[in-house]
């Protein structure tokens, strides 16, 4: 049914349609509306046979989820940013135990400096934690991918993180097609756990494993993610068969076929990027884009294939590997191995900085003449950086960087505070 609703509300409705049995809720911006709306669905009796638990931390949220999933309940939670870091130990544990929990991450920057706005540093920090990571480009995809996520998780008995850009998606009101219960029931069978805590068949789960078997257990985790490279597209096909929409899968492309320059990205920024591509295509420039929908497992072959004939690759990412450059770009370079065309890294949108069409167009024009550094920070205020570096040279006690820079960029009125 078509509805004009907030992205978070759409996701809550979609998760509700998946008949979760245990939902753990802990507030953190920008995912909070999702669990609020799910709590309301349970309270008003629309979502039945579901325990909605207000826990005391994100660490507890996922830990409760670990228990409920191991006891055979379909389990959901949501988090973001600091919350994802706070539950980090449980994130690894859930995947190590092979528990098919589905968790939304409303992507947000990580502090310090504390920042509530969107980038993808949070999900990226957990990229190697053993979870499948699916990134939504739009709110419609967020809805669709959540429904697929439960099926992927339960098929493989491994947890799935559905990543959607905070605010840009979670707080956007737009038209979404929310499936009906009958369709979802047809697509998603009841949860049948591979392992379950049951007095009739007592098993020990989570035993200690030494060097004699640890490698094999870890290998199986990797092997299952390799299987997921097949399962994710299959389930996207099944989804299309029932719902009629092309959502999910490993990657998508936009006007990529004959492109000399390919922009590789993930998440909602493809919306702005595709508009810029349209404008440049109108001028005859051969540019296109590839969106990574599944970041873990990373579709090396699919990306290799789509990039192999292009003359240059620009990876646009909302995260930063401090001391290296790009996180996504490092992965893309591995997919692009054996090719001679350059891969440029562009870091943009950190902490919610707007990514404008004008900036992107200027960037892409430069890229098309190979006039880019290996790593570029989009719209970096170099003068502010220089000013702070100068200050650090001059004064040993130069002060807190974030506060200095806030003054320098004029957010804080120096006249009033000094």
């Amino acid at each position, binding site marked *: 049914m078509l509805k004009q609703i907030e992205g978070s509300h759409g996701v809550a409705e979609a998760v509700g349609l998946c008949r979760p049995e*245990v939902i753990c809720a802990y507030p953190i911006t920008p995912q909070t509306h999702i669990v609020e709306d799910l709590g309301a669905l349970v309270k008003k009796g629309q979502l039945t046979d579901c*325990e909605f638990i207000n826990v005391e931390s994100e660490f*507890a949220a996922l830990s409760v989820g670990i228990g409920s999933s191991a*006891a*055979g309940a379909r389990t959901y939670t949501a988090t973001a940013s600091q919350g994802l870091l706070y539950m980090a130990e449980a994130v690894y544990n859930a995947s190590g*135990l092979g528990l098919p929990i589905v968790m939304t991450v409303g992507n947000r920057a990580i502090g310090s400096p504390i920042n509530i706005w969107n980038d993808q540093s949070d999900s990226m920090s957990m990229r190697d934690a053993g979870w499948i990571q699916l990134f939504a480009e739009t709110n419609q995809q967020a809805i669709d991918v959540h429904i697929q996520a439960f099926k992927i998780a339960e098929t493989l008995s491994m947890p799935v993180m559905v990543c959607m850009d905070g605010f840009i998606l979670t707080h956007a009101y737009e038209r979404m097609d929310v499936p009906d219960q009958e369709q979802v029931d047809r697509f998603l069978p009841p949860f049948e756990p591979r392992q379950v805590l049951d*007095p009739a068949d007592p*098993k020990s789960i989570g035993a200690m494993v030494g060097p004699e078997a640890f490698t094999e257990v870890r290998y199986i985790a990797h092997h299952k993610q390799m299987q997921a490279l097949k399962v994710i597209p299959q389930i996207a096909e099944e989804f299309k068969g029932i719902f009629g929409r092309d959502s999910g899968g490993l990657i998508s492309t936009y006007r990529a076929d004959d492109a000399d320059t390919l922009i590789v990205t993930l998440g909602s920024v493809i919306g702005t990027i595709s508009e810029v591509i349209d404008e440049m295509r109108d001028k005859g420039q051969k540019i296109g884009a590839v969106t990574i929908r599944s970041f873990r497992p990373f579709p090396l072959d699919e990306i290799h294939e789509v990039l192999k004939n292009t003359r240059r690759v620009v990876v646009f990412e909302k995260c930063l590997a401090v001391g290296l450059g790009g996180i996504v770009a490092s992965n893309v370079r591995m997919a692009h191995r054996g090719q001679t065309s350059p891969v440029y890294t562009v870091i943009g949108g950190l902490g919610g900085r707007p990514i404008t069409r004008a900036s992107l167009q200027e960037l892409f024009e430069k890229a098309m003449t190979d006039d880019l550094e290996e790593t570029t920070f989009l719209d970096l205020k170099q003068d502010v950086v220089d000013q702070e570096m100068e200050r650090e040279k001059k004064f040993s006690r130069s002060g807190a960087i974030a506060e200095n820079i806030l003054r320098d960029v004029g957010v804080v009125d120096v006249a009033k505070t000094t």
Partner: protein
Amino acid sequence: MANQQVKFYQTGTLTVGNRLLDSKLRTVQATMDRSNSLDSGHRACQGCGEALGARYAIDAAMRATNNQLIAANATGCLEVFTTPYPESAWRIPWMHSLFGNAPAVATGIAAALKVKGKNDVRVIAQGGDGGTTDIGFGCLSGMFERNDDVLYICYDNQGYMNTGVQRSSATPGGARTATTMPLGPEPGADFDKGKNVPLIAMAHNIPYVATASVDRLHDLEAKVKKAMSIRGARYIQIFVPCPLGWGSNPANTIQVARLAVECGMYPLFEAEFGEIISSTKIRRKVQVEEYLKLQRRFAHVLKNPDQLQLVQSVADKNIQKFSLMGFQGGEV
């Protein structure tokens, strides 16, 4: 002439007496059909109080629930010595997730059972004092506050034994640990630090809180049985000597536990909804030296009159606070 009730001395000693009691009054451990939920073959040290405490408690809980029990275990000695992969000493459905989240995992298990209508299956969470009073404390308090249907059992051996005997917030003042060495002008663990989790549990107004000790089986089993007759969040903290960490003779585990109770260092009581309803009276009061001298972790305290006085004052305060005097005779 009316039948005269014959009292045997042993029935009040808390150790022997099973053979003199009616079979219904004997302990779960004394029965042939005990569940042996924590089976033989595990890797605990000789004289391990925690292994005993866990077997006593879980067997009693199994009896109380007609064997419909699931346990969530915190990381620690109990987890490590019972489940060296691919072996497991557990004959119950058992799960280990992390060091600090056993109460939350148990909450999740209980929630899943509730939503699936399996109301007869009950949930226990268990861990050592480090996993309970320190790193798992947030999750424990959350579980209490929500009154989740979980019995949490803390096996209290007063330190991080699994990592090599470091101080926890349950380590008593004066005790030697690897991080509170008997050095300098104030040797051992600081006095007036640490927390009393049974009292903190009571502050959550949960239906049942109790302390127990491995030296008295009837009392321990009765508390577990009672806990399993109640729904909601419950907490039992069991005193379990650690020969390795405390420097005590493995053969003396029960004696050490007995003396801790009898000198007032480990008060045993029960509380319901935040109010203490009973305490176990000291039968034969001893000075703390009797207890301390069996443990090398207190060797320096015995040579230091000031510290010895501090330990004695802790015991004396407990005796006052928990009304531990006034033993009335041999109830089982």
